[in-house]
């Protein structure tokens, strides 16, 4: 055995979020996914001589919103820089980005992974512009074997926010949870489509390993091309193991960018990239500084919606168990509104949450619809009828079906579908009496000590009342009469 401690992975994640503004970051071209190539382009985003950028104010408002939701400090004063590099996907040969003074810095995000909550630091969130899309042609689209590249600049200049975590992530599961939680927050803020499959949110991971939490950081490797949360987790997991194996066999990890191959399940080396200093960042002379005054910042803060983790905590405070509150928290917003409305209408929070995440979600799936006619008041009314023994659990499912189809109030549906539980003690008693009179041998067997015959008699009463008697009440009444 070596004298050294166990390997510890050190992971940082960069998340790129495309903002869903109407127009691009620095020009008036439309932002749209799936438009014909090169139809949303103009002199500015094509870098034609003399064209000048002008900042989209809404993007600055939205990055501030993201920063506040990620518990960041908001810089009162920040500036744009040019990041210079040669690549065909940006016609200017530089990307307008931010360097030493980003709009947002020093935040954090709590994420749940491996059964615990960990706080992941956010280094910064800065504003930049997206690049065009390159399509590599030849040999199955594989980047290294391409014979030519096709370029679509519709995406060039779309507002892009890069969120950089601190190297606080320690496992592949945490990496995935961080990415998922961040996506939930951004989706809740309604500032991005936040769709992985359309590339409106993208992840890169920086990974190194070291001998225990006290050791210095190892050499880090950047991995790209993870198109789902699952592939992010797999890629990080693979890369951790690859680095450990490399080091344990006496090799070294080299600083490079590696490409995740989803099908093969491996990362492979891309060309070594220009070091950070080679980007020759300098202040963008065509744009004036951005000032987010404390007054503007607080105005933006006031527009923040309830965030997923806040919602989960609120549900827990209402006594909803963690599984259900998780389901409810990520449910269709109309279902969350239904829950809040039902609570205000006096419903018990636990039963409301259970019915919504259980029966109602199942009904929507079965009916393949997002449209429900159920009002919070009707749901509360139905739950009260269950509590008052006017509806059995199975009859309530039937009532719910009627409510979801907009057939009226809970009582109206229960009446029109003939589902009300018999609450008239006299009627139940006469049904019990009739069943006892019709089954003298069962009565005799019970009195001879055969207790289980009660089950049969309850069944007979339920049948006689078309299932509308409360079986518990029937059971009690039968035992009284038989003893």
């Amino acid at each position, binding site marked *: 055995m070596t004298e050294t401690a166990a390997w510890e992975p050190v992971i940082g994640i960069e998340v790129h979020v495309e903002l869903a503004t109407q127009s691009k970051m620095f020009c*008036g071209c439309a932002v749209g996914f799936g438009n014909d190539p090169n139809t949303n382009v*103009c002199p500015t985003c094509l870098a034609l001589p003399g064209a000048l950028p*002008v900042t989209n*104010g809404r993007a600055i408002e939205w990055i501030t919103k993201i920063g506040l939701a990620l518990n960041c400090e908001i810089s009162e*004063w920040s500036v744009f820089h040019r990041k210079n590099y040669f690549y065909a996907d940006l016609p200017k040969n530089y990307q307008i980005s931010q360097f030493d003074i980003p709009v947002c810095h020093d935040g954090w995000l709590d994420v749940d992974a491996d059964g615990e909550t960990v706080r992941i630091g956010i280094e910064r969130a800065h504003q930049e512009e997206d690049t065009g899309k390159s399509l590599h042609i030849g040999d199955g689209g594989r980047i290294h074997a391409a014979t*030519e590249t096709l370029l679509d600049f519709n995406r060039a200049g779309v507002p892009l926010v890069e969120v950089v975590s601190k190297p606080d992530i320690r496992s592949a599961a945490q990496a995935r949870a961080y990415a998922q939680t961040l996506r939930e927050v951004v989706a809740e803020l309604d500032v991005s489509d936040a769709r992985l499959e359309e590339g409106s949110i993208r992840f890169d991971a920086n990974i190194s390993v070291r001998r225990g939490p006290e050791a210095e950081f190892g050499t880090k490797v950047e991995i790209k091309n993870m198109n789902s949360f699952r592939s992010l987790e797999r890629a990080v997991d693979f890369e951790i193991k690859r680095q450990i194996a490399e080091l344990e066999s006496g090799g070294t990890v080299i600083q490079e960018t590696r490409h995740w191959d989803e099908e093969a399940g491996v990362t492979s080396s891309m060309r070594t990239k220009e070091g950070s200093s080679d980007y020759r960042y300098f202040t963008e002379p065509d744009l004036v*500084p951005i000032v987010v005054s404390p007054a503007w910042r607080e105005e933006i803060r006031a527009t923040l919606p309830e965030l997923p983790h806040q919602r989960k905590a609120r549900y827990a405070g209402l006594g909803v168990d963690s599984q259900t509150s998780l389901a409810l928290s990520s449910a269709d917003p109309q279902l969350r509104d239904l829950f809040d409305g039902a609570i205000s209408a006096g419903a018990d929070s636990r039963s409301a949450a259970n019915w919504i995440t259980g029966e109602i979600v199942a009904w929507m799936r079965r009916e393949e619809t997002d449209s429900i006619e159920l009002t919070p008041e009707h749901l509360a009314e139905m739950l009260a009828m269950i509590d008052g023994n006017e509806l059995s659990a199975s009859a309530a499912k039937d009532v719910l079906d009627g409510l979801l189809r907009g057939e009226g109030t809970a009582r109206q549906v229960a009446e029109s579908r003939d589902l009300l539980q018999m609450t008239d003690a006299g009627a139940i008693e006469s049904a019990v009496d009739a069943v006892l009179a019709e089954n003298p041998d069962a009565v005799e067997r019970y009195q001879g000590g055969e207790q289980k015959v009660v089950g049969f008699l309850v069944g007979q009463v339920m049948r006689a009342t078309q299932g509308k008697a409360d079986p518990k009440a029937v059971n009690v009444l039968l035992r009284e009469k038989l003893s």
Partner: protein
Amino acid sequence: MPIDIDIAHVARLARLDLAEQELETLRSQLSAILEHAAKVQSLDTEGVEPSNHPLGFVNAFRADVVTGSLDRDEVLKMAPASRDGYFVTPPAMTQD
């Protein structure tokens, strides 16, 4: 004070293919510029407000409004090669 510059590296970053004599000329010119900058840097700025920008105003924003784009055919006509609405370039990854 002469400043050491890796002029070949700078040329490579800018994708400039320069002859030996041109490299020499540019090295000395760039060196003169950097020496000038170093002189500015050595000035006493005690009590001077730091500045990120020469202009005296901030927050020049546009409203988030679509103002239209160029005609694609006109745009593609400017490029050396295009196909199916795309610009065509040599394979990006092997460009050096």
